[in-house]
């Protein structure tokens, strides 16, 4: 855990070689660490500092500026429920409460099996489909409580593994276009 694996060190070196100033590779390397472990722990930041000739404090400074870099362990699925104005008016808080009850955690907690972390977020720019949420930053709109339960079951069973990879995994290729089949179908790049 935590420090980059040998394979990722190779990838890191390749990434660093793309930039005239190695320090520019800081964000890509943080993504790499998050992809490896699902979150970024202190020793990963120290390792990145070593690779880039930065102090760990400098790495922390940048890493902590971006809320999407997680410095606490998160589950395989990060569920982000919007409670900003449009979602609020359309039952966002009720959805969040339902999610807490269904997952058995409160906001910012992770289920004991490490599958889900629940968080409350501000507007996701998906207001037309309020209330909405994201799982690992993939959108799900017009989410009813039943939709939510089904989504949780599907995720847990690995039925959405293709479209919603584990937290931290980056899309390196464009996924094929997805036609909207269900109201809760993911949309994004192909939508």
């Amino acid at each position, binding site marked *: 855990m935590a420090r980059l694996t040998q394979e990722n060190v190779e990838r890191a070196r390749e990434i660093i070689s793309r930039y005239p100033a190695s320090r520019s590779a800081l964000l890509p390397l943080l993504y790499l660490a998050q992809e490896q472990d699902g979150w970024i722990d202190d020793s990963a930041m120290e390792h990145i500092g070593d690779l880039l000739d930065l*102090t760990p*404090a*400098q790495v922390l400074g940048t890493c902590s500026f971006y809320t999407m870099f997680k410095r606490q362990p998160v589950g395989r699925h990060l569920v982000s429920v919007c409670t900003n104005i449009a979602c609020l008016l359309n039952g966002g808080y009720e959805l969040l409460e339902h999610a807490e009850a269904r997952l058995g955690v409160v906001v910012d907690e992770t289920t004991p099996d490490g599958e889900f972390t629940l968080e409350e977020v501000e507007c996701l720019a998906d207001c037309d489909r309020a209330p909405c949420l994201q799982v690992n930053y993939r959108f799900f709109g017009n989410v009813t409580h039943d939709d939510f339960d089904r989504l949780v079951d599907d995720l847990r069973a690995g039925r959405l593994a293709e479209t919603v990879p584990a937290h931290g995994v980056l899309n390196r290729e464009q996924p094929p276009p997805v036609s909207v089949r269900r109201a809760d179908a993911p949309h994004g790049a192909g939508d």
Partner: protein
Amino acid sequence: MTEQTETKKDTVTVTVDGKTFEAAPGELVIAAAERHGIYIPRFCWHPRMKPVGMCRMCLVEIEGVRGLPPACTTPVAEGMVVDTRTPVVKKAQDGVLEFLLINHPLDCPVCDRGGECPLQDQTFSFGPGESRFVEEKRHFEKPIAISELVALDRERCIQCARCTRFADEVAGDPLISFVDRGDHTQVLTFPDDPFTSYFSGNTVQICPVGALTASPYRFKARPWDLDQVESTCSTCAVGCRVNLQSSQNDLVRMLGVDSEPVNHSWLCDKGRFGYQAVEHDGRVTHPLVRKGDELIEASWSEAYAAAAKGLADVRDLHGAGAIAFLGGARGTNEDAYAWAKLAKGVLATDSVDCQLDDGLPAAAVLGLPRATIDDACRAKAVLLLGPDLKEELPVLYLRLREAVVDGGVAVVELGPQSTGMTRHAKTTLLYRPGEAVEVARALTSGRDPMPDAGGVRGEELAAAAGILGRAGEGVVVVLGRPSVAESGRTVAEAAAVIAAAWPQARFLPALRRGNVMGALDMGLAPGVLPGRVGLDAGREWFSQEWGVLPEEPGLDAAGIVGAAAEGRVQALVLLGADPINDFPDRTLARRALAGAGFVVAVDTFLTDSSREADVVLPAAMYGEKAGTTTNIEGRVTRVNQKVTAPGTVRSDWIIAAELAQRLGGDLGFDSTAAVWAEIARLAPSHVGLTADVLGRRENRDGVVAPYEGEGPPRHEAPVEQIEAAAAVHQGETLPSEAVAGAPEHAAVDEPSDDDDPAGAGRPPLLTFAVGDAGSTAAPPAVDAYALRLVAGRRLYDNGVTVRHSAHLAGLAPSPRLRANPYDLDRLGLGTGDRVRVTSSRTTLTLEVAADTGIPRGSVALPFNLPGEGAADLIDGTQPVTDLRVETTN
């Protein structure tokens, strides 16, 4: 180009608040306005750092510019009209301050900064007076220690980024940074990675609120109780300008003062917090005289009588040459002059050395053409042949680092191990200990292809020579002692080789003890007299005033310690010197103290050495006396008294004068001013540098000796003449009488003498050339089983200042033997293993650590850390020290 555009290039005309003045193009509005008496409020802008425009406190109105630009990021332009006091600006200032105060705890009554706080002050002068914010402020644990020396209260922080920018831009130690964002933003270190910068105290000084406080000063005083005086830090020889502050006769704080040629307002933490030693209750406060095994408190007259009797007995029985003086590099120039006059002019011994064989021969330091810090920072190339500047002369390191990072100065480093400067150097040549001369010869040989030399590969030498060669005549050599485990003579000889090959090269000495340069200038070294003249060259000039003078050149520290160990030096006077800890070879130093029949220690604390003395005379410390001091450049500045010394402690020059009287002499001065007046009258390099001159406003940053009066600068003598003069000072070609006033020599060194009748007969200043360093045995051939020792110093060591400063004492690292991983591998060792280390002197058990900055075949062990260490291993009689390293089992 027309004439008009040309004048435009020089200055631009701007109008601020109706006042029209000229400013330099590129100058920032905030700075230009301030120079003309218009203060624009600010938090984030600092004149010694790059502007960032973070805090928005400096918003101004500029005619024709939309919005309110920050004065700290806006350069002046021709015809610019700026208003800093309009209603719109006032409204913006109100807004910014109200905003900054939203999360500010307003705990001024319990804040160290209260009373001198820019946030308080600017809120009073420019603020709205009321806040509309009634919600809960943000809360943090307060305060947290971000290092042993600095505490951080995040609630008070206004996120100006002065501290983080200082750590990154100026110190090069980015160990603090902004963490999180928005209203969660806080300054933090990485967990378990404290802000252990040698320069951390500066962040406390520049924090515009009380968010950063210094542990040694917390809750010690309120600003309005403080009394202050401007002085010069005397912890090392950079000579940073400071404000010395006291409360109720206790030194409580030192603040950096911005001296343009020296410290740019920065201090290192040892200099900043070392005042704690002055306040330590372990000071010697009364004279002590030995009765049997014990040192018993005595009156000054008893102690003087005992000291004078001991010295007179030795003089009468064994001659003046059996008396020797060690130390004196920590006092004022006046102190040093008084001791030199007592030793040479009353006792007539020349065996006097203010260095402890841990520096460079006096002739080299005084005789090589000198560069200033500014010269080095503006040089085309700098050759660094000396100690780790970050460890020994920290603010010189800051200045050079800035010159490299911002000014593009090329540094070529030449040393036995890598240093704090290595990452900024264009190239670092790691030579084999003891072989600096070989490297210097190769470097200046111009040979192609370049042969290997001193353990450095030819290609590396060629590359370095290329960098230095391109700089042509503009090379400044920063010259000091890279390691006390190799002879200082070889380093001096290397310098002479460079000086001969590159006649225009100039040298900036990198010696560390507070006033070592002043002590050398004042003659506290063998073979020299005050004012940078040789003993023989200055004989006639000084004998008229001083009466007697030593017949023969005396011994240097190594000679004195060796002779004392053999009983040839019978009386030893220690001027704050602690040879047992500071002389490279501890075995020899112990023998010397035992061998000298009579030892007088003039000291501030009882050290391992002064505990052995027969008479201890308690001396005043820094801040307890006034006078002048001299930095590495030769810059003479004033040091001032802030507190009264404890007990019956006296200044060194008084002790010297009173001791002289009991020895039948008369130093002829009765005040510090009188001592200086004599120096300014007699010491050839200081003639004319009177208290009056030093006190002038334009000389606030001090005056660099040799003092040249108001006249044009001294012209550079061609090399052949320098060498001729060197031969003269060695007494090799001309009898001394022929030297004084000999017209051809006066022409070499004192070209202005012709039009300066007062200077007639003044002896020529020393010069230094190849061969002057004296001979040293060549280091023995490298033995495949041995590793050659490199011993440099650490900022936090076992010296008097650190040991007696409560907050610094714990910072000294524990000694580890560092070696190249290749050598460790070869020996089947790894970092953390304990090994037996054997030299011709002793065997020690130490921990090893792998370090790629140590060349193969060498091992590094810091000098003078607490406990056993390098001094026990070093054999001072050899040019280098070879060690055997074995596993402990």
